[in-house]
């Protein structure tokens, strides 16, 4: 691993996009946008700086050159990318004082960026304000003087450049830097596009005294100078200076009066910026023209619709779709957006953030405040009806900036990662199998901060950021640890060291001990302690609790937080196990008991190693499962303890088949149990749990 940049603000996730020429651009709307070309050892600031100062231009010795001359310098990088021109230095030489050469002096030398050289540009007599010519190139950043003896007739044979385009837009000064207040960057139509103006709200205001603001929990940066500062709903002030990561000075004191403590605030560029998108020059992903006032000119602003905030940009088909919270616009261009961009409203749905859409087989799955829908360019098809309850109460919308969506092609599934309840980062995903049109919910023992697709062994695979590691999602048999880098196996096989399941001999509130266990994972690719793999404790009734591992020493496993119930000797422990559950629909019992056997049949793949699988039965819409009245311990590996709801199934039994009869739901001549639901709950082991079928007889 290589750290290519440190100190980024993490108020929101970075947006990354590759340009047509193969450079990765990174934006978060707070820091200066970055670029990385896969060659350099560190990410660089996107765009070439404009020289901070001008220089001096003078004529030397008597000669034949006279007239009015303007000169500029600009920086270039190793790839020939250029920056904007410096302020001009001008000289007027009369015929009576004609000179033989021009002396450039006090040429700026430092920029602090990736610039490696400078170009000197000059007008010929009569081209001032119109055309400039390349007078010299300095292949270093140290020379401060240069002498040019080019006459006008020689100069106009050099490379020329008009200051403005034919329609009056900046040409020589088209190399402005990308906007730093936009949190989304995408590539579309041979240009880079920026949108989704960021409001920074890290921490809180501690005090405001006059124009001095003190914050806590904030990280202010120099890009915030000239941005607006709004606190507690009051009219905004402008930030005059950022003095430290937690202090700044306002241009006026109009925000004074909110100086006690803990007021929420927002720092943003401008209200209008929420509806704007910026685009680069064609084929120049870092060129954003500036007018004479320093304002970007490659800007499009969407119409007012009562929904000002752009949240995402999505290239799809030959269009760029612009999402707001509740509107979708389609942008098309024939090549010059300044002249021919066409923007039209195509749907009254929206998107939560840039990471909440994904392309799937020519369509897009998009997630907005109302739910999840398929987007086909102008049509929308809502698909989240079966899971709509999650949107009304379970999802923590305050953290929607951390939500993300990922498509897994080989699973034919789209995962919508969301924070539930009081979570900040997603630990759940609503998962939609678009081929089967079925939903399920996944819960993870880790916070899943991001997701993406990466080519591994020649195949596109889903990777997620889980705590400290990048992890392949839905592969292997363990969570939070791996015996080898090889994935997609169905079983751990024979382990040379370490075991992932055993029996508790003794325990405390934060430890368990297995006197016979081999807990040496030092040879593993990812050890259970690396990221704190889950440890499941399964009691003799088949119920379990999970804690994350903080340490392993000898035969002792320590967990990060105390167990809710101290494990008992004889309980089963399982490292890296994966919990699963499925509760099926409600069925009605058929009325004639004698003709309709009531039973459940389960077919599974026999396992070499142990795992946990429980069957539970709910009757008459009860929220509590039925419990057993007597102990049961059958030879086919089925066991239940009196008072327990779990019919425990031993999946190592070689029959691969389980039968559970429940002909006990009658009183007198009529059924007392009329409705049935069956639940399957389990915790995996060293083998993947594979259930082939579940049949319920005697119901309709």
């Amino acid at each position, binding site marked *: 691993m290589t750290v290519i940049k440190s100190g980024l603000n993490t108020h929101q996730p970075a947006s990354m996009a590759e340009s047509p020429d193969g450079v990765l651009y990174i934006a978060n709307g707070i820091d200066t946008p970055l670029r990385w070309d896969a060659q350099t050892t560190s990410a660089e600031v996107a765009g070439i700086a404009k020289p901070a100062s001008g220089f001096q231009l003078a004529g030397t010795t008597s000669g034949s050159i006279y007239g009015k001359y303007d000169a500029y310098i600009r920086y270039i990088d190793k790839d020939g990318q250029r920056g904007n021109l410096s302020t001009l230095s001008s000289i007027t030489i009369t015929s009576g004082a004609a000179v033989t050469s021009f002396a450039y002096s006090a040429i700026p030398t430092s920029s602090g960026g990736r610039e490696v050289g400078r170009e000197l540009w000059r007008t010929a007599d009569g081209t001032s304000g119109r055309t400039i010519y390349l007078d010299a190139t300095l292949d270093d950043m140290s020379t401060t003087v240069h002498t040019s003896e080019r006459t006008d007739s020689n100069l106009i044979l050099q490379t020329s450049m008009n200051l403005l385009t034919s329609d009056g837009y900046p040409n020589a000064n088209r190399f402005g830097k990308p906007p730093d207040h936009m949190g989304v960057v995408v590539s579309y139509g041979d240009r880079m596009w920026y949108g989704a103006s960021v409001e920074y709200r890290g921490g809180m205001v*501690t005090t405001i005294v006059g124009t001095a603001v003190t914050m806590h929990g904030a990280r202010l940066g120099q890009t915030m100078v000239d941005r607006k500062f709004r606190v507690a709903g009051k009219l905004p002030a402008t930030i005059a200076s950022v003095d430290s990561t937690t202090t700044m000075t306002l241009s006026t004191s109009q925000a004074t009066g909110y100086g006690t403590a803990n007021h929420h605030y927002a720092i943003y560029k401008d209200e209008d910026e929420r509806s704007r998108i910026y685009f680069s020059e064609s084929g120049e992903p870092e060129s954003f023209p500036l007018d004479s006032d320093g304002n970007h000119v490659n800007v499009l602003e969407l119409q007012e619709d009562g929904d000002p905030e752009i949240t995402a940009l999505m290239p799809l088909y030959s269009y760029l779709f612009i999402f707001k919270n509740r509107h979708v616009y389609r942008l098309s261009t024939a090549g010059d957006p300044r002249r021919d961009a066409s923007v039209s409203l195509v749907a009254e749905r929206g998107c939560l953030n840039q990471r909440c859409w994904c392309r799937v087989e020519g369509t897009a799955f998009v997630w907005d405040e109302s739910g999840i829908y398929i987007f086909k360019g102008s049509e929308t098809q809502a698909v989240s009806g079966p899971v709509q309850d999650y949107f009304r109460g379970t999802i923590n919308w305050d953290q929607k900036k951390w939500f993300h969506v990922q498509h897994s092609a080989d699973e034919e599934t789209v995962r919508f990662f969301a924070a539930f309840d009081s979570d900040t980062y997603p630990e759940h995903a609503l998962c939609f199998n678009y081929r089967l049109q079925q939903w399920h919910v996944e819960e993870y023992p880790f916070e899943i901060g991001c997701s993406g697709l990466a080519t591994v062994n020649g195949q596109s695979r889903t990777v997620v950021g889980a705590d400290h590691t990048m992890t392949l999602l839905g592969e292997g048999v363990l969570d939070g640890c791996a015996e080898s880098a090889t994935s997609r196996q169905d079983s751990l096989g024979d382990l040379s060291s370490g075991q992932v399941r055993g029996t508790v001999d003794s325990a405390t509130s934060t430890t368990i001990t297995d006197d016979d266990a081999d807990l040496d994972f030092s040879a593993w690719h990812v050890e259970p302690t690396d990221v704190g793999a889950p440890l499941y404790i399964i009691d003799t009734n088949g119920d379990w609790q999970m804690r994350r591992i*903080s340490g392993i020493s000898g035969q002792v496993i320590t967990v990060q937080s105390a167990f809710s119930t101290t494990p008992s000797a004889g309980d089963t422990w399982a490292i890296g196990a994966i919990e699963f559950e499925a509760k099926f629909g409600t069925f009605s019992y058929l009325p004639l008991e004698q003709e309709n056997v009531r039973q459940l049949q389960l077919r599974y793949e026999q396992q070499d190693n142990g795992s946990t699988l429980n069957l539970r039965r709910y009757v008459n819409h009860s929220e509590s499962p039925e419990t057993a009245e007597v102990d049961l311990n059958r030879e086919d590996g089925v066991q239940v303890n009196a008072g327990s709801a779990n019919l425990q199934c031993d999946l190592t039994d070689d029959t691969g088949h389980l039968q559970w009869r429940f002909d006990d739901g009658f009183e007198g001549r009529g059924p007392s149990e009329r409705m049935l639901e069956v639940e399957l709950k389990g915790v995996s082991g060293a083998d993947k749990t594979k259930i082939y079928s579940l049949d319920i007889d005697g119901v309709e």
Partner: protein
Amino acid sequence: MATNLGDFPLTDAHLEVGFTDEGTTPSDPSFTIQRLDPASGPTTVSEGTAFANTQLIKAGLTTTIIGSYTVRLYGGAPRVVDYTRRFEMYDPSGDSSGENGAGRIIAVQAFEKPEVRHLVWQTSNGDLVVRKNAS
């Protein structure tokens, strides 16, 4: 005092926790921060005071160690406060002084060409990390 500890904005070298006072303002309660060290168990790393008047908890942390922490707040009259909340010690605002490449991963992007397969990700301590030719 009923206390809602709210969020845990963590700056470079100290912890500040905002909370709301929903009841009678007590005398300034005290609190401790303990790190759950996998090897040695809970270790107190800081003790400090929660200032009821500013509704802030402040403490200086001498080291920035990624790990699990427990904040324990002990309150005064009239009701006992013993609120424990575990949190991960990350600098939410970016801090290059931390362990390079460590922290929760909050953004990822594959950067692939026919001859290379790179994976670029951003961590919650403000690092941008590349794993070249990820496989």
